[in-house]
């Protein structure tokens, strides 16, 4: 336990951040220019941090694997971004947003971090508005909001069903401004392949230029990972197909603890799988549950078209089970309830792995136009993919892997267990506990990037001002580069028969079957065996054509899948270790008689932070006890 110092400031919860900011060390503007910071990733947290650090005057080097920073996967977030503005006079406040998040996360998040995320949420909305993000507005010209799951206020700001895109393009624009000013140097089409440590501190990275295959060394005084989550470990998920955990995993293997890896959010409303070659599952925003009602037929095997099934033969199972929150229960609850109905044989469609999301009543009440203005692009997207017009008949939806609450362990300053290495946005673990509430991802990523890290990083860099520019000729760079190249050559030299993607697909199936929405000890133990077997097969029978010194997309995939095999093992180990159900982590052995998650606060009110100890050696578990000063741990009920 000794190694985890969370650095939570003293004092009352509501004053911690203010107090921290007032007392933290600062860096003189003249010194900032001399300090270099590497940022990996250009989603809301990475682009936000790069912009804000550039504005402060630091020398920032920013990397992304895409051809342009504008394509980072934050772009795909749909429904909205939360803030405690209380524009609706519906009783919202920083405290209530904080409490909703803590409760939504099933009391497995760190209180002080969550409060701070809620606290900076209003500034995030102000900033994006000033950057020209066109959030939806009311006729009087003020900003409009809507509701999301797990809350009873309306605090979600949105831009139709493409809020992530609009926020990301806002962040991209602020990043561009700093690039123009020369404060940020942008390195697109680069993949971080390892972290370089010098005297135990993060001092740089080894990256591969994805166009030329060239291996590059980049040095800095601090490194920030803004690399997103690991949802693609399930192969098919709502993530971009190239999203990956490799940067975070490499950092983990260099000493950054990985926290709560088993906390994975399976999103309830996605377009079900249509064919066996399918590469991803498309999300249908949670906001749809404001106006859409989820149901299945009351009778098994009722094959009538949805519109022919009369009211009395429909089971609105979320409304039935959770009358207080109805269709707007949190994601983990909605996903499990959906799975329960489908497993019981009430699912619809050819596979039986789907339920209806029906807008009939809302269209009747509000008119087609009103629904179109709120969700037009989502209805269009659904039709594009499936050919079905959901103004006329219900959408068919099923859960899919979406967001990872787990991630690199960070302290209050967002620093990992490696000095000088930070993790922000989805890549860290800190704010969402065991389940994330809708629209709080954009909020947290933006808050981390724009408002939190640019304050906390000074505290570290203030002691680095005497460190001159770090040379990439140091032996640490040399050695790390050597191991990176060895690994790349290894992939290419296997010369087996199977593609990296085919292994990824099989790994994803193991994870989905045994470590998805519902887990049990037997299945998890079986998964560990299966993962190991598949991993051995991967290293025997992979084929990567071509060389590493050229554009080689198969090689990129191979590296990511290889890391996923290792992370998968840790994910399952963590799920096996946590003998309780909480949030998205549902262990069949631990449930109430009516099928709800049964937490064990006495034994498991901790963050599981795993330390890497070497190739094929067991991880060591470190526990950060969760102390709740302000809230009382309660049974989470949405009934």
């Amino acid at each position: 336990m000794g190694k985890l110092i969370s650095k939570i400031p003293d004092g009352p919860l509501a004053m911690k951040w203010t107090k921290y900011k007032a007392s933290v060390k600062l860096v003189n503007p003249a010194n900032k220019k001399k300090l270099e910071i590497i940022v990996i990733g250009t989603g809301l947290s990475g682009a936000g941090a790069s912009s804000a650090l550039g504005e402060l005057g630091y020398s920032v080097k920013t990397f992304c694997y895409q051809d342009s920073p504008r394509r980072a996967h934050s772009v795909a977030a749909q429904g909205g971004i939360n803030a405690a503005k209380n524009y609706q006079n519906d009783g919202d406040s920083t405290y209530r947003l904080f409490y909703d998040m803590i409760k939504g996360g099933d009391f497995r998040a760190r209180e002080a971090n969550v409060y701070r995320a809620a606290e900076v949420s209003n500034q995030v909305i102000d900033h994006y508005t000033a950057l020209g993000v066109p959030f939806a507005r009311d006729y009087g010209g003020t900003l409009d909001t809507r509701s999301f799951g797990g809350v009873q206020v309306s605090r979600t700001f949105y831009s139709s069903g493409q809020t992530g895109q609009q926020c990301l393009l806002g962040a991209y624009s602020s990043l561009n401004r700093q690039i123009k000013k020369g404060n940020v140097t942008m390195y697109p089409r680069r993949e971080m392949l390892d972290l370089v440590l010098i005297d135990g501190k993060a001092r740089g990275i080894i990256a591969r230029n994805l166009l030329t295959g060239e291996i590059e060394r980049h040095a800095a005084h601090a490194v920030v990972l803004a690399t997103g989550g690991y949802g693609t470990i399930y192969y098919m998920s709502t993530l971009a197909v190239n999203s990956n955990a490799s940067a975070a995993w490499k950092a983990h293997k260099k000493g950054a603890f990985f926290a709560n890896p088993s906390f994975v959010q399976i999103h309830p409303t996605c377009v079900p799988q249509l064919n066996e070659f399918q590469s991803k599952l498309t999300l249908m925003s949670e906001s749809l549950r404001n106006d859409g009602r989820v149901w299945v037929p009351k009778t098994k095997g009722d094959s009538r078209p949805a519109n022919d099934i009369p009211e009395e033969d429909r089971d609105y199972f979320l409304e039935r089970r959770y009358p207080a929150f109805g269709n707007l229960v949190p994601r983990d609850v909605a996903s499990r309830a959906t799975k329960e109905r489908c497993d019981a044989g009430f699912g619809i469609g050819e596979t039986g792995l789907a339920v209806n999301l029906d807008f009939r009543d809302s269209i009747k009440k509000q008119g087609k136009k009103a629904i179109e203005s709120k969700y037009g692009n989502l209805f269009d997207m659904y039709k594009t993919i499936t050919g079905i017009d959901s103004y006329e008949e219900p959408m068919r939806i099923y859960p899919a892997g979406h967001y990872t609450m787990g991630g690199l362990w960070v302290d209050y300053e967002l620093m990992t267990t490696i000095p000088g290495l930070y993790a922000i946005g989805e890549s860290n673990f800190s704010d969402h506990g065991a389940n994330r509430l809708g629209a709080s991802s954009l909020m947290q990523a933006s808050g981390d990037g724009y408002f939190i890290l640019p304050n906390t990083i000074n505290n570290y860099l203030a002691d680095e001002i005497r460190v001159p520019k770090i040379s990439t000729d140091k032996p640490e760079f040399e050695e790390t580069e050597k191991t990176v190249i060895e690994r790349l050559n290894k992939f290419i030299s296997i010369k087996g028969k199977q593609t990296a993607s085919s292994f990824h697909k099989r790994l994803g199936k193991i994870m989905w079957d045994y470590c998805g929405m519902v887990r049990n000890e037997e299945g998890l133990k079986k998964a560990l065996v299966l993962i190991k077997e598949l991993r051995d097969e991967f290293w025997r029978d992979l084929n990567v054509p071509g060389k590493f010194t050229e554009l080689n997309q198969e090689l990129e995939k191979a590296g990511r899948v290889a890391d996923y095999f290792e992370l998968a093992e840790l994910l399952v180990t963590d799920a096996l270790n946590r003998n309780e159900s909480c949030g998205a982590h549902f262990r069949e052995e631990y449930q109430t008689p009516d099928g709800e998650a049964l937490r064990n606060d006495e034994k498991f009110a901790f963050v599981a932070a795993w330390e890497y100890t070497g190739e094929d050696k067991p991880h060591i578990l470190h526990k950060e006890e969760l102390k709740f000063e302000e809230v009382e741990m309660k049974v989470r009920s949405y009934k």
Partner: protein
Amino acid sequence: MKLTLKIWRQKNADAKGNFETYKMDNVSPKMAFLEMLDALNKKLVEEDKDPVAFDHDCREGICGSCGMYINGHPHGPVSAITTCHLSMRYFKEGETIWVEPWRAKPFPVIKDLIVDRTAFDKIQIAGGFISVNTGAAPEANSILIQKKKSDDAFDSAICIGCGACVAACKNASAMLFVSAKISQFALLPQGHIEAKERVRAMVIKMDEVGFGNCSNTGACEAECPKQIKLTNIARLNREYYKAY
């Protein structure tokens, strides 16, 4: 479905490319176009051949990574969608499908179907932003904006930067792309203060990186997967004249 693919293969920017023919036997009409290419690549890798390189990422029509000519149309024959959203149900049994990279001088081919679109980023870096530092923003509701204006700004702001407009244009003009950003900020009060500098900087950069001018044929609008309107170009021209 059985299909014949004629795909542009080009080893690198300097190499001379050519069409290669591939036969696909087992294509499901439920597949997406890129999934069909995944299946082709799987086959090629299993035969230890070089797979077809193409850009793609979110596969839900929003990141703007993917883009190729399919049967002579940017993003394929179906309007208002990206390549990743193109379903194989739109193709006929036995059809021959021609697949090429964007053809435009400012977008040089990198390999096969991948082109270099950094020229777009350069234009955005030149002026596609509002200069406000983190922490300096006023309270969000202190800026009141007519709903109509805000909605119109949004309609321009949804450009995904895929490059289909340039690829569709006989002049390789980036006017639709540039005008979308100019319009977004021209419609919003936040963007007014720097309006002149912005439009000048973006247009100068647009010319500098080699995009052609607009001659109002409207191909860009017709092929834009996000249906960005040609009226944006009219607004860009107005803003440009106002700036001098």
